[in-house]
């Protein structure tokens, strides 16, 4: 099957898997059962569609398979059977039901990896094997995670509901974290892209779905804008040899200006709600980069200000490191180095801390120390694309 056909297949499955889960949830009232049936239907689709073609009504096809399996498989559940037999496609699902599904998958009583795996399986319709490949984890380990999580949902009484108003903020943060982790996993992955599923695309799709379902939550729009701003520039991130290209060296004509403008509009609309948050601020920082025609045009003062706001809302040493990089361009290497010195204790094991120090030392005329810092960074990273950049730097200078 061609890449295009496979992508198309993945998109169709993703479009309908969550809806199917919602419909089945309504009948069975049991998350674990609904989840199993969705997975069965997805596996059947992946088996049949490549040869037979995608059916005209993929949703009805998936539904029919799931219903048949359910009627065959549910021995004890006579009441399900009666309800299932009556259930006709299309089932109208409302926004609340789709949200319930997402919030249950991302319940804070579940471990993070299980939240991610469940969301991918139930909401995006990935198979266990696809999740395993994307995370370089054996399929059986993913299957175990999912089984354990579903058992906990049932046994510990994790409810299937949208959180109440007073707990919504914390619970939404949990969902956004899952989507952002998925995005990073996909975006930072440097293995041969066609070999594995593009999780960055799944993350964008999820963020976009959530934005449709919760249009008044500015942080959801902020995360969606952030993901789109990154993806709009993805083509320039890797050179012809597959190596990572640093921001300042990227060919900006390869950035998707239209997509950037759209994402900035989305972000501006979110900002009008005057409820700033970490995702909106990160998106605003990325927008400053994305809107600069040339590296030299970057508005570094604005970026430093945005980092100050971000640190106020979400203090983190890594964010301070990023701010220090902005300070280097806004004020100078000396000022940036002073900030880095303060971070030595907390970020001593972080490769980008040393890579940044190396750049500053070089600018401050200390090439020997700079090489040592580059070497330290190289020892600390396992990411092959980042290793390549550091090795190149050591070889050149």
């Amino acid at each position, binding site marked *: 099957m061609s890449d295009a056909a496979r992508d198309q297949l993945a998109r169709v499955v993703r479009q309908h898997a969550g809806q199917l889960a919602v419909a089945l949830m309504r009948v069975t009232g049991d998350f674990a059962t609904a989840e199993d049936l969705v997975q069965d239907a997805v596996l059947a689709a992946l088996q049949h569609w490549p040869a037979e073609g995608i059916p005209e009504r993929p949703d009805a096809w998936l539904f029919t398979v799931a219903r048949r399996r359910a009627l065959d498989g549910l021995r004890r559940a006579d009441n399900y059977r009666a309800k299932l037999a009556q259930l006709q496609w299309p089932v109208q699902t409302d926004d609340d039901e789709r949200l319930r599904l997402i919030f249950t998958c991302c*319940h804070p*009583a579940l471990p993070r990896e299980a939240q991610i795996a469940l969301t991918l399986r139930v909401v995006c319709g990935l198979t266990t094997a696809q999740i395993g490949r994307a995370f370089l984890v054996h399929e059986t380990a993913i299957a175990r995670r999912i089984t354990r999580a579903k058992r906990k949902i049932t046994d*510990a*009484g*994790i*409810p299937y509901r949208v959180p109440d108003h007073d*707990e919504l903020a914390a619970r939404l943060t949990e969902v956004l974290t899952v989507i952002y982790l998925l995005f990073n996993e996909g975006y930072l992955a440097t293995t041969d892209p066609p070999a594995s599923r593009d999780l960055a695309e799944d993350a964008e799709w999820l963020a976009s779905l959530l934005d449709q379902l919760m249009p008044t939550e500015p942080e959801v729009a902020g995360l969606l804008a952030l993901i789109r701003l990154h993806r709009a520039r993805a083509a320039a991130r890797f050179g012809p040899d597959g190596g990572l290209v640093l921001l300042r060296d990227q060919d900006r004509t390869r950035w998707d200006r239209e997509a950037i403008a759209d994402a900035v509009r989305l972000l501006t609309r979110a900002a009008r709600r005057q409820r700033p948050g970490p995702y909106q601020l990160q998106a605003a920082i990325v927008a400053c980069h994305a809107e600069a025609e040339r590296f030299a045009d970057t508005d570094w003062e604005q970026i430093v200000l945005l980092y100050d706001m971000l640190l106020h809302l979400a203090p983190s040493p890594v964010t301070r490191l990023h701010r220090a990089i902005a300070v280097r361009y806004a004020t100078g290497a000396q000022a940036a180095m002073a900030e880095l010195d303060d971070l030595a204790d907390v970020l001593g094991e972080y490769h980008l801390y040393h890579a940044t120090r190396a750049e500053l030392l070089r600018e401050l005329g200390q090439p020997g120390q700079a090489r040592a810092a580059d070497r330290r960074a190289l020892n600390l990273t396992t990411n092959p694309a980042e290793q390549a950049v550091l090795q190149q730097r050591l070889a050149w200078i």
Partner: protein
Amino acid sequence: MKYVLLFVETEDFARDLEAMDQAERDRAYQRVVEWMATHAGKIRGGNKLQSPETATTVRLDRGEPVITDGPFVEGKEVVSGYTEIEVADLDEALRMVKTWPGCPIVEVRPLE
């Protein structure tokens, strides 16, 4: 659903409690009493445990029963009491626990 809330004390917490004067300690206990009163409709029972030094552990997986002094795990965190509650689901249990004014750790465990 029924859950047991296991209240867990830490060394820091014990030290803080120790450092309080009588009036402060009374106020801290009063907050716990108030929490219990607020949630009385959902509480099905429970008890404060005596200190871990009073515990005796019996191990039955070593041939003959082995009796030792102390709790089954030696640690800085010890179970100091439990309450059984009956609520709709885990979210309701968590909502209750979030306002617990006593010890710093609470484990929420469903009953069979």
